[in-house]
């Protein structure tokens, strides 16, 4: 049970830092997964030419 706003802020702000860090890192594999095929196709197209 928290009694001061300060404790509450420490908890929320701290945990939020961890959460966003996770998201920030997770974004890279996500982007790669998203664009993987597209990259391939473009390279294929390039080969055809």
């Amino acid at each position, binding site marked *: 049970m928290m009694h001061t706003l*300060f404790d509450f*802020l*420490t908890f929320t*702000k*701290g945990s*939020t*830092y961890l959460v966003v860090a996770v998201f920030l890192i997770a974004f*890279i594999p996500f982007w790669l997964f998203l664009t993987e095929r597209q990259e391939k196709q473009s390279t294929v197209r390039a080969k055809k030419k």
Partner: protein
Amino acid sequence: MNESPSERTGIITPFNVIAAVILAVGAVIILIRFVKGLGATTNLTHTNPWGLWIGFDVMTGVALAAGGYVTSSAVYLFGMKEYKPIVRPAILTGFLGYFLVVVGLIVDLGRPWRLPYPFVVQAGPTSALFEIALCVALYLTTLFVEFTPAAFEWLGWKRWRKVVVSMTVALTIFGLLLSTLHQSTLGAMYLATPTKLHPLWHSPYIPVHFFVSSIAAGISMVIFESMLSHRVFGHLVEISHVQFDNITVGLAKAGSVVLAVYFAIKVTGISLEDKWHYLSTPMGHWYLLELLGFVLLPCILFAVGFREKKTGLIRFAGAWTVIGIILNRLNVSIIAFNWQLPPDERYVPHWMEIWVTITIVTFGVVVFKWIVNRMPILYEHPDYRGMH
């Protein structure tokens, strides 16, 4: 290419001599500071715990080092390829800038050797300073990595260079993200002092003020710094004067717009809290001087310079804006801070503080010179022409 006149004429040049003197004395002062404590070298008091070293070296330093993220994101994210030639010098200035910020911090901190504590010992996530420390640490690394290609080209490590260059976009995005955060949070630090900072400068908008002004600072710094390096290292520059002037003019357009926006949000901030009546007070006049003389005026100068394609005027406006940003940061951190206290309780920097600040800046210039004289900063390395 690696041969430069300054070296040909040997180590004894007026610049080197002056720099050497400044650095020598500075080193002694810094030594005193670490042996006898802050009290011996600064005018810091319990009432004014932050002086020139925070107000200038950190606050202003960070703002003026904004050129790196501004130019790199312009070129690599928004595809303004024509500005490519200024990215590397900008990134180098940025990197050095942040490096000097850390140096200044180390001199100012009570126990600098504990600098990593917030990350390895105990975190204070509610503090704006925690966020800034985190961002600056990461961004310094980012800038370093962004800078390495130049070094690798100089050293001729092709494979390493390739790896880094492939990460350019990711690095740029990360850099822009971090810069947005800590540039604005520097302002947010003063949200904690509603009773001490003059109402005209203290505003819920202050983080935005700081961020937007940092963009203006970045652009003006690039104009300013590129002008200087073209004066000093003209022999290294290979892009034509026409191309260089076009870049300057383009920057002027951007600078004008950013300053206009900055001016707008500043005024909006006043209206937001109905602080008009403060404008008629002495502090208000000082504020107006900053707002009209160092935001609106350069904004107009940039605009005119862009319309008339007057690079001279633009460069002047650039320098003027830089002064304006310095003034703003000093206002927030020193001049408008504790404004309500009687004169004998206000802070005036000690000459040693000023000297150390000058020392740090000089140190930066020397390193910049050294690097520019060796690495492909102002010119493209022949082996990699037209790549990346």
